[in-house]
């Protein structure tokens, strides 16, 4: 990492790690897996400099359980992994949701199913946004599309996690984790210290004991607990939707994409304009809460003839797009899997086909 004037050329994975430290994270627990191991390398070195804790856990399950313990003790804690490792952590995700612990997890996605491959993919959208673990819960899911955004959203994730006492998940992909771009640190990155009077830090003889738990055997109490969680999720849906839109005014076709594919689509928007096709882009930055209203409003636009969702999977976010569009316009899908990235040309071909009324894949 070279310091080049005020902007620093960093790998995405390094930007995540540095952002966490600047956001006040002093407890990191991880297990090696490609393509995100640079985060562990960075943490192993930097945590010593800043008086923090780096633990290489025996498993992904242990790492997320350590995060549970550390978050419950009041710390800003984080673990990071890639798809197969994130599957293992789903048990911890569910317990953290039930116990309402604030923490940050990063998934630098690779391809599946199974051991799959190490190249970029977005096959974990369902897992990230719809659950993955058991029970009714939500994670706040952020989807960066550049190294600068990896940095900023990781910082923001700690504040969001503290504010709502939820797990905040950064859903990146192998391309973003591995690539380098300039990063500009923001002033005053550390979120304000949150008051955590619920944390288990020892009673000091000053208060009744605190308990961190997700088990409520009494059904009425458990339903009440669930209703409280749902009310919190509804508040997040009202307050925290983030989305970038490009060229929706007068657009013929609206493309939805997040992460790396959204970057590719930005080039396609220019190529399409050259041949007179007006393409708009909706790039969700929060995948949950999903920008349903923004997609729905785009569907109301007279100029918009159809939607196209471009993803690195077999069609996952497109289901949320369809729910938002609600039958008002046709919704097409263009996806690649296995670590393959769509070329600008092939996306443009799909858009041309839609314009001709032939539909996408």
């Amino acid at each position: 990492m070279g310091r080049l004037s005020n902007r620093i050329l960093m790998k995405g994975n390094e930007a995540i790690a540095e952002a966490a430290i600047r956001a006040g994270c002093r407890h990191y627990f991880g297990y090696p897996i490609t393509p995100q191991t640079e985060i562990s390398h960075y943490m192993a070195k930097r945590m010593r400099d800043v008086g923090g804790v780096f633990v290489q856990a025996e498993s992904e399950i242990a790492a997320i359980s350590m995060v549970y313990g550390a978050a419950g003790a009041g710390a800003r804690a984080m673990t990071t992994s890639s798809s197969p490792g994130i599957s293992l952590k789903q048990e911890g995700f569910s317990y953290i949701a039930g116990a309402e612990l604030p923490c940050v997890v990063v998934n630098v996605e690779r391809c599946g199913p199974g051991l799959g491959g190490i190249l970029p993919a977005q096959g974990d959208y369902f897992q990230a946004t719809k659950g993955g673990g058991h029970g009714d819960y939500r994670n706040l899911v952020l989807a960066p599309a550049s190294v600068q955004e990896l940095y900023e959203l990781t910082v923001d994730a700690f504040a969001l996690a503290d504010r709502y006492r939820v797990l905040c998940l950064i859903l990146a992909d192998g391309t973003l984790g591995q690539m380098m771009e300039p990063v500009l640190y923001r002033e005053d990155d550390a979120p304000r210290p949150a008051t955590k009077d619920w944390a288990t830090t020892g009673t000091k003889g000053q208060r009744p004991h605190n308990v961190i738990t997700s088990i409520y055997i009494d059904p009425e109490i458990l339903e009440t607990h669930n209703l409280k969680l749902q009310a919190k999720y509804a508040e997040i849906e009202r307050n925290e939707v983030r989305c970038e839109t490009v060229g929706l005014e007068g657009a013929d076709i609206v493309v939805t994409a997040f992460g790396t594919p959204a970057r590719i689509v930005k080039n396609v928007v220019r190529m399409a304009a050259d041949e007179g096709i007006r393409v708009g882009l909706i790039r969700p930055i929060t995948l949950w809460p999903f920008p349903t209203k923004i997609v729905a409003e785009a569907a109301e636009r007279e100029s918009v003839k159809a939607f196209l969702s471009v993803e690195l999977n077999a069609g996952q976010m497109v289901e949320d797009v369809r729910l938002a569009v609600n039958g008002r316009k046709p919704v097409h899908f263009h996806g690649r899997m296995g670590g393959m990235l769509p070329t600008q040309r092939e996306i443009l071909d799909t858009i041309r086909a839609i314009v001709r009324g032939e539909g996408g894949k």
Partner: protein
Amino acid sequence: MALVYQRTQGLLDVPFHYCPGCTHGIVHKLVAEVLVELGLLDSTVGVSPVGCTYNNYEYFACDMQQAAHGRAPAVATGIKRVLPDATVFTYQGDGDLAAIGTAEIVHAAARGEKITTIFVNNAIYGMTSGQMAPTTLLGQVTTTSPFGRDAATQGYPINVCEMLATLRGAVYVERVSVTSIKGIRAAKKAIRKAFLVQKKGLGFSLVEVLSTCPTNWGKSPVESLQWVDSAMTAQYPLGVFRGADLEVET
């Protein structure tokens, strides 16, 4: 009138939910008494497991976290790394610690995490109604070994203390039982030593307590105590497996 006995301040005034003849209550009391006597209660965070003692956070007067099945040592690691001056303990049964949580206990011990584990071994899954545990004895009848545990298909009991004692990070490992007044006193001494080992920052400490499950064993409470003394101690001999020479009282 002189006060000769008082409920420990380490336990809240809540009735236990444990079955008649179960020895969890005794072990809870010993842990709570030791924490109070050492002046550690106010700075202690305990971790409850999954199993019959899943909700012992309702009993202990210190701060508590409830962990996923088997993950208590990892949760305790997270707590201790945030609060190095706190006393952190896990309270785990044999299914939690020696089956689903084997990796977590082995690695917490190997790292020499400065935490204390109270391992209650009653050779059976109690809460889920009497299934075979990793510590079930050969020939022992359970709901999932209805013809007696058969080594040919169900393998052998795990001796946790002996296994963990091979790890350098596990500096104090002892097995006790609570079937007699003498045994209970010895158990309390062991639990005290385990917490002192932690207080002195020496490493990981574990006390295994041979315990009863009259309900799922199909025995009376008295028969159960006798079975611990005869059958269980034959498989799981009492004694110190690591740290016999450690001097922690000074």
